[in-house]
Each structure stands twice: as structure tokens, then as C-alpha cells.
């Protein structure tokens, strides 16, 4: 029995996604969990996995297509199964080209009608629409066919438009298709890091991820009135416990201060459902999330992503740590999956490694709050009339005033202190 794979809804506000690359070709076997295709949303490029075992009978959309959520993108059938695609999808029979509609699946020797997507040598190439880039239709179709990222090509046509000639000369210089991983597929000219780059003015297209961050952050700052509350935490005990624990762990398994903070946040949120909520302004509704999924802001090439740790309140610091490590690795390699970046209910942004005293963060919509964590540092503290060396770490909570108020934010930071300053609570 054939099955339909649809465009997944990967986020609260996702309406459509761009199918940037087919990983599985028509006629190929698919296992459950195999990556079928890559999809670009406003936030990132994610992989769509098959929920079924079988043969990819048909790719219903070519690469580069923008598909509304829940619209079918592929059909998976059993080996040897005859699938009349249109009838299967409930469309009226075309009649004119029955051979194209009726596809026979026999192992991998299937004849596909859509040679476009199956035969084009774009397997390792990005095909994202380069937004404001000026390129002739011919240059665009050539780039898609040859697997060339247009952002890498210097345009010499009128107004800097990329033309056939530019594609040809680019290809002559770099005959191999560019192998790019998204979202690090957002390329900058290699000269970016050189000193010569600074001496000239460059007009470069805005990378997709950069544009998405800009759009979301602008939306957040424009729509949600932020207020900020800062708390200074004594992290002496936490640093000691961490040192003890890390002595027992292998190099790649060690815990970061942030792993403790993430668990502390999750446990504190249990008492503050307002800060684990989302405002649905259109429907005048507050959505209190049934899970505490802590997002962690991660710097990646050309921007940042928020990776998600699910049901964080139910996990140990060690489990949180190893899960986050895996997801961050995928994010930095551009291999992020939809579940890695969607569904966070509260975000932690930590710039501690950069010797930051404190900073304020912009709320990651549609969340209600975000915690900005600074560096743990040694400072003079006065205890019982004496100056001693203490360890302190500042954290600033940004809260959407439409959802919560200053007193609640302050109380949350107090609750957090209970865990951060008495870290045994995090370990039991």
C-alpha cells in the first residue's frame, strides 16, 4: 500500500517550506528514518525522514519548489507495486500521458518521467533560491543543472546580472560542483577574512539564515515589549561540583556550566508556567506548553540557531549535556534536523565563554522569555565584613511584557538561584 509523504509543519508559524534537495531518487529503496529530502524553512535547512519502508515511487515536486505545509511531496510504495499517482492523490486522471502517470516500480530499474529531478547532477549541490540575486533565467536554470551556487558567481551582465557567460567562466574555473552543506551553505567570498577584503566596498547578497534571523528578531522587538531583569549568582559551589564531576568524565564528555544552567532553568520553569508559554495574539490565547523544552542558542557560520532539548526537566545534567553536544555538532555541520531546532519553549543564550559580564537577549518568538548568561568570574565579595574572593555569574532575563511582569521575572531568577547556588539540587 503506497504512502504519502507530506511537507512537515516544523514550527509554530511555518506555512511553507522549500524543498531544496532530493536525497533519495525515484526508484530507490527507502528505510524507515532514511533522509528523503532537505527542506529549507525560515529558520534553517532540515532533513525530512521517511516514516515508511519501501520504494520512492515518485517525487511530486522538483527541487527548489516552495510547498505549503501538509501538501504531498513524495509517494512511497512497496517494491513492484503499481501506483497510479494521480488517482492515488485523488486528482482527476490526466488522460493525455498515461505512461507518465502510471509508474512501475521494480527495484531500482524504474523508468521515471521526471528526469528533471532524478537525472540532474545536483545531488551534492545547493539549489536554494538566492533571493535578491540578479541572474538571468538561463543562468538560473544552468546553475540548477550544474549544481552551482549562484551566490558564488560574479555577475558581469547589465546591472551585475549573472549571465550564461558568467556561469561558463565560473565553471571553467571550478569544474567540480560545489559541495555545500546547509545552513552553512550560506557562502561568503573566500576573501572575507583577508585584509584586502576590508579595503574595498562589497555588496553581497544577504545570506538566507541572516535574513531569517533578521526577520524574526525584528518581529520580536517590534511586537513584543521586552523588559529585563538581572541577577548575580554565586557559582562557587557549582564550579566546584563541576570540577569534581568532570574529573570523572572523559574529555569529550565533560559538562559545561551551561549544561547546569539549562537544567536549572528547566526545573525553575516547573514553577513558572507563564514563562513557558506562547502568546497567540491572533486568537487572544495564551498557550501553556505541556513540555519544558529548553532551547540553546548556538553560533553557526553566518548566524545562530536555537537547538532544542526536549523534556529537559526530566533529564540529568549529563544526559542534557550529551544530547546538546550531538545536536550542536549537527547544527555546525549544517546537518540539523527538524526536531533539532523546532519546538523550544524557552531559550538560554550563553556568551560566558567570551568573557562577557552581562548582556540582554532578544526573545525567540513565539516564546515568552529568554535568559542571557554571562561569564562566571572571580570577583571580590564582602562576607561578614570581610572581602573575599568569590565566583559570580550574571544572568539577564528578557520577558515579553504581554505575558508576564517584572515581579514574576524577578521571582523566576530567585528560583533559579536555588538551583544554581545549591547545585546538589540539580544532581539529585
Amino acid at each position, binding site marked *: 500500500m503506497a504512502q504519502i509523504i507530506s511537507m512537515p509543519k516544523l514550527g509554530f508559524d511555518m506555512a511553507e517550506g522549500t524543498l531544496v534537495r532530493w536525497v533519495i531518487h525515484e526508484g530507490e529503496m527507502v528505510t524507515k528514518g532514511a533522509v528523503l529530502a532537505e527542506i529549507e524553512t525560515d529558520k534553517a535547512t532540515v532533513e525530512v525522514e521517511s516514516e515508511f519502508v519501501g520504494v520512492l515511487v515518485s517525487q511530486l515536486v522538483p527541487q527548489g519548489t516552495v510547498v505549503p505545509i501538509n501538501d504531498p511531496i513524495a509517494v512511497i510504495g512497496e517494491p513492484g507495486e503499481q501506483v497510479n499517482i494521480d488517482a492515488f492523490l485523488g486528482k482527476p486522471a490526466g488522460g493525455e500521458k498515461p505512461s507518465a502517470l502510471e509508474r512501475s516500480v521494480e527495484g531500482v530499474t524504474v523508468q521515471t518521467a521526471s528526469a528533471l529531478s532524478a537525472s540532474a547532477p545536483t545531488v551534492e549541490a545547493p539549489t536554494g533560491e538566492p533571493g535578491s540575486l540578479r541572474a538571468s533565467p*538561463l543562468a538560473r536554470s544552468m546553475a540548477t543543472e550544474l549544481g552551482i551556487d549562484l551566490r558564488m558567481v560574479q555577475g558581469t551582465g547589465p546591472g551585475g546580472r549573472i549571465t*550564461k557567460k558568467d556561469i561558463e567562466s565560473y565553471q571553467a574555473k571550478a569544474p567540480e560542483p560545489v559541495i555545500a552543506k546547509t545552513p552553512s551553505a550560506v557562502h561568503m567570498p573566500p576573501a572575507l577574512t583577508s585584509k584586502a577584503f576590508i579595503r574595498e566596498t562589497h555588496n553581497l547578497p544577504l545570506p538566507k539564515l541572516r535574513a531569517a534571523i533578521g526577520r524574526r528578531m525584528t518581529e520580536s522587538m517590534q511586537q513584543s515589549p521586552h523588559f529585563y531583569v538581572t541577577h548575580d549568582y554565586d557559582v562557587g559551589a557549582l564550579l566546584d561540583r563541576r570540577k569534581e564531576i568532570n574529573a570523572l568524565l572523559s574529555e569529550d564528555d565533560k559538562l559545561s556550566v551551561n549544561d547546569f544552567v539549562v537544567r536549572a532553568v528547566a526545573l525553575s520553569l516547573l514553577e513558572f508556567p507563564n514563562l513557558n508559554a506562547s502568546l497567540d495574539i491572533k486568537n487572544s490565547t495564551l498557550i501553556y506548553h505541556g513540555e519544558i523544552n529548553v532551547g540553546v542558542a548556538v553560533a553557526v557560520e553566518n548566524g545562530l540557531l536555537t537547538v532544542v532539548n526536549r523534556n529537559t526537566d526530566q533529564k540529568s545534567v549529563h544526559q542534557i549535556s550529551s544530547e546538546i553536544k550531538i545536536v550542536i555538532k549537527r547544527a555546525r555541520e549544517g546537518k540539523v534536523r527538524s526536531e533539532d531546532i523546532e519546538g523550544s519553549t524557552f531559550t538560554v543564550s550563553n556568551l560566558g565563554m567570551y568573557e562577557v559580564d552581562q548582556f540582554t537577549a532578544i526573545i525567540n518568538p513565539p516564546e515568552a522569555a529568554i535568559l542571557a548568561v554571562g561569564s562566571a568570574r572571580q570577583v571580590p565579595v564582602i562576607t561578614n565584613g570581610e572581602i573575599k574572593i568569590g565566583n559570580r555569574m550574571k544572568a539577564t532575563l528578557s520577558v515579553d511584557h504581554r505575558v508576564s511582569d517584572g515581579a514574576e521575572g524577578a521571582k523566576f531568577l530567585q528560583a533559579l538561584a536555588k538551583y544554581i547556588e545549591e547545585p546538589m539540587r540539580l544532581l539529585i
Partner: protein
Amino acid sequence: MARITMREAISQALWEEMERDPNVFIMGEEVGVWGGSYAVTKGFYDHFGPERVKDTPISEAAIIGAAIGAALTGLRPVAEIMTINFAFSAFEHIVNQAAKFHYMFAGQMEVPLVIRTVSGGGRQLAATHSQSPDVVFAHFPGLIVVAPGTPEDAKGLLRSAIRINDPVFFIESATLYQSRGEVAEGENLIPIGKSKIQRPGKDVTIVTYSKMLETSMKAADQLAQEGVDVEIVDLRTLRPLDMEPVLESFKKTNRAVIVEEGWRSFGVGAEVAARIYEEAFDYADAPIQRVAQKEVPLPYNRTLEQLALPQVEDVIKAVKEVL
């Protein structure tokens, strides 16, 4: 193969068709005793006689109305409208009668009529006598519109026009009558509704017809000296429009310039460009350029008139735009 003028080519086509078929006759202002205001029918009156070479009153509506009537009875009139500007006086008969009979009477009636007329400016005849409203007539289904740019095409297409059973609006160019070209001896009918590559090239496609073919050829010669290899597609027939050679050429060169003598708005350039974008969008490597007459009534003043009409330099400039 003889090298003859456009005037001679058209004259020969008429002469040979009248010799071949006694139903073919000519009517129009000064076509008889005077020999035609462009001297195309010189000698016809003496040879074929007043029955078949009829001078008419100065009334275009009367000429076309009478010609349609003759055609409906089975004759094959070739009616001459001295210039296309005067065809407006017969517009109703041309687009509402001649073009519709076959359709309105469910195919029972045919109008084997040829209307010969002269289009174009450049001879200081001022705004009302210098227009190139070819596309106005090409707008109407039911009317075939032919506009050749070479003597050979003029002869072959006119012979075909006289032989087919649909009304044909046959547009000649006033400033092409003296242009010369090779014309093969014999019948050499050229099918109506077929565009033709008049000059093969690989860098850019010029789509044009009639007088502007000559202009485009000159531009192509100059561009060739700069190393630009222009391919020129001559539409020859505006309706039905044959896009096949245009699209084939465009898919090869990926860039096009459309050159017409008439005004740009709603013109041949607009139509051809739209069809290229519809059929071959993914082959476009540059926005299509149009060369056309400036959007003014054509001035009488010679300098201004030449400024308003598309010139060789305009075509060269447009070609360079798309390169």
C-alpha cells in the same frame, strides 16, 4: 537568377497570376491608366484591359466593399489601397466583413481577396500619411497579414496570397520598392505563415520584418565587424505568426532584439517578446529589447522624422544592451 527590385518582383507576381488565372483582377486608385502611384501596375492596363485593371473612385470603403462582393462571387480581386493610412476609411469592410464572412456563414462563404497596401514612413509625408499601423490589422482573427522584406519573398508570398481563399492584407514598404534582391525564375510559391532565418548567426537574435529587415541587416553587418554574430529572423507574416524559427534561434542565442517600424506600445515587439517569455523563459540570458518608432505622430521635418524612426544605430545599441 535575376537581381530585381521589390517593385519588379511584386509587379511580376501580379502579372503572372493574372496570366495564369482569368479570375484575378486589379482595382484601386490610379492603378490603371496611370500605372499605380508606386508604378507597380505600369503596363497592366494596356495588356489586360479596363475590365481587369479597374480605376476606382477615391473611396477606400467603396474599393474594399466592391472587392469583397467580387470575391464572394468567385472572382479573385487584388484591391490596392494607396497607403495603409487610407485603409482606416475601409476599416469596417476589412476587419468586420472580409475577415468575418467565412466564420459568420459557417464556411459557406469565402473571400479570396488580396488587399495590397503600402506602410511606413521616411519620405516626409507627415503624420497622417507615414504610419506603420501593421499590428492594428494583425489583431483580427480571420485576416491574414503578410509583410515581406525581400523581393523574393514579396513575389512568392503575393502569388500565394492571390491563390488562397482567405482575405490577405498584403503590406508593402514605400521605401523598399527600389531595394534589389535575387529572385528565382519560375513559380516559386512561398507559403504564408512561415518565418525565415534571413541571416544565420549565433550571438543574438533579431526578430523583424519588412523595411526593418533591411535596417537590421545593415546593423548586423556593422556588428559583424565588431565580432558580434547576429541571427535575423524575418517574420514575413504577422498573422498567423510563426514563432518556431524565433524560438529555435532564441534557444541558441539566449538573447533577442525585436525591431519594428511601428510604435512600441502593443506592437510586434510586445507580442513576440511575450511569446518568447511564455515558451522559452528559461533560455533568456538578458531582458529582451525592443526597437520601435518613437511614440509621437511622425514629424514632417526630415531630421525629426529620421530621429523618430528606428535607425541602424538604434538596432546596434539595442543589440549591445542584450550582449
